[in-house]
């Protein structure tokens, strides 16, 4: 009996510990999602957005957005051209690094008054081209000399899973300011929809901006919502058991054959427990904060809608048409987070169940 009792205790603690690990992992993934993807609305046009990237630079100050030009596949080599690596090159506005949430290991993003050919390269490319070299770094992109002004970190394993394996080099617009913008990152505003922000930016630049809209800011919110939803489902265990306790007490009060005074205590206990369960449930429901745009318009139980959303996410992960697709990176992070949360909730329930058994057996 005692052995069985200890087994329940060990089982309960082990499950709760594992659940805590999964919850921490989900929180860690959410934090990394925010650190490695922009809090922005992304406008993307594979054939360009109809505005030269050089022209957008004139508006970035007022419009809270950054732009990147049409990318091209290039050969990046060291100055002596002893090592050559295929890479993807994109010209950007000077504030792009800040909007894209790039974290620098060396140097920084090129300044607004940057002259000459400047490049910001990823850590992996820096290792391959300049391993063991100190001082000013210079490289050749399709034979042209560039000065490296910053080396950015490429993020953790999830960012790499969501990105293509080719290194991405960002350059300033001085080389060809007339190249069309391929991507705009508009600073996300919680109170506006992505479409409204797109229209405002189009109105500011006085050109129609048509392309794919990805609301990465809302995906950050969704990351928080998934974690909170996990806490909600975990907390339901207490509500359920309070309800069961209340039900048993109320039934025992009903079935009690003694005097009225004997019925009062279980009836009060039952009613009190149920009120506590109702208040606890109402409080727990405050943790359900899914952004309105991810919910169906009329029927919250519209299963086909959620199925379509999940399918879209899976398709986003499997898309291979773009090199650095932030929405694909977000989708990988969100899937990992959802997986951790889904694993954490049943473990939490199992842990609480084990501890409850241990506690009840101890009482006996």
């Amino acid at each position, binding site marked *: 009996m005692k052995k069985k009792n200890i087994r329940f205790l060990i089982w309960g603690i082990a499950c709760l510990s594992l659940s805590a690990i999964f919850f921490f992992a989900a929180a860690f993934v959410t934090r990394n999602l925010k650190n490695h993807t922009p809090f922005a609305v992304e406008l993307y046009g594979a054939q360009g957005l109809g505005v030269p990237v050089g022209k957008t630079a004139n508006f970035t100050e007022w419009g809270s957005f950054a732009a990147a030009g049409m990318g091209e596949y290039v050969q990046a080599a060291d100055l002596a051209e002893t090592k050559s690596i295929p890479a993807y090159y994109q010209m950007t506005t000077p504030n792009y690094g800040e909007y894209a949430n790039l974290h620098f290991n060396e140097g920084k993003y090129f300044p607004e008054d940057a002259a000459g050919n400047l490049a910001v390269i990823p850590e992996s490319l820096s290792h391959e081209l300049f391993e063991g070299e100190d001082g000013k770094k210079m490289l050749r992109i399709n034979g042209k000399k560039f000065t490296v002004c910053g080396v950015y970190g490429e993020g953790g394993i999830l960012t790499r899973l969501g990105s293509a394996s080719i290194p991405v080099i960002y350059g300033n617009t001085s080389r060809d300011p007339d190249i069309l913008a391929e991507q705009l990152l508009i600073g996300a505003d*919680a*109170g*506006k*929809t992505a479409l*409204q922000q797109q229209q*405002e930016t189009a*109105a*500011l630049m*006085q050109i129609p901006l048509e392309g794919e809209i990805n609301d990465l800011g809302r995906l950050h919110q969704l990351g928080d919502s998934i974690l909170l939803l996990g806490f909600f489902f975990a907390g339901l265990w207490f*509500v359920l058991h309070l*309800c069961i306790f*209340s*039900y048993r007490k*109320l*039934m025992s009060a*009903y*079935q009690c054959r003694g005097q009225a005074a004997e019925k009062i205590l279980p009836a009060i206990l039952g009613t009190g427990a*149920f009120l506590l*369960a*109702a208040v606890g*449930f*109402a409080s727990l*429901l*405050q943790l*359900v904060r*899914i952004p*309105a*745009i991810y*919910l169906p*318009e*009329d029927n*919250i139980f519209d299963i086909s809608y959620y199925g379509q959303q999940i399918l879209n996410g899976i398709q986003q992960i499997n898309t291979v048409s773009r090199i650095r697709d932030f929405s694909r990176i977000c989708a990988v992070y969100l899937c990992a987070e959802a997986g951790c949360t889904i694993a954490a909730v049943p473990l939490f329930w199992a842990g609480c169940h084990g501890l409850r058994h241990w506690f009840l057996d101890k009482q006996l």
Partner: protein
Amino acid sequence: MKNSKLFAVRAAAALFMALVLCTIAAHRIEILLLTEVRSLAVPAAVTMEDGSTVTKVPAAAVYTGRDGKPCVMRLLSREGVWGREMYVEEMPVELSHEDYNFCFLKGDFEGQSLAVYPSRPLSDDETVRCAEE
């Protein structure tokens, strides 16, 4: 007979508990499904050179009404089943002029609260929730 009475009482108690919890959940779901808006306090009106009074509001605050004419959505509160709730009321307006970001409305709307940037198209008398809340 006694058993069936006991069964009925048990079932009724369980059903009552489930219904209370479902009602609480339904209330939360209803709030989640409301259209999100952001509130905008209308600034003081300005007097134009011709003596007319106009109010400057963001272009996002002006909608097209059911009659196809411009309108704004006033954000008001009322007593609902679950306490105070916010709702919008369509108010026809006349445009003086407009530019890319702002509209100038004829008349003085100072101090009024308008609904801007709704998550879905708004309709008159619709219950909404503010995004800041």
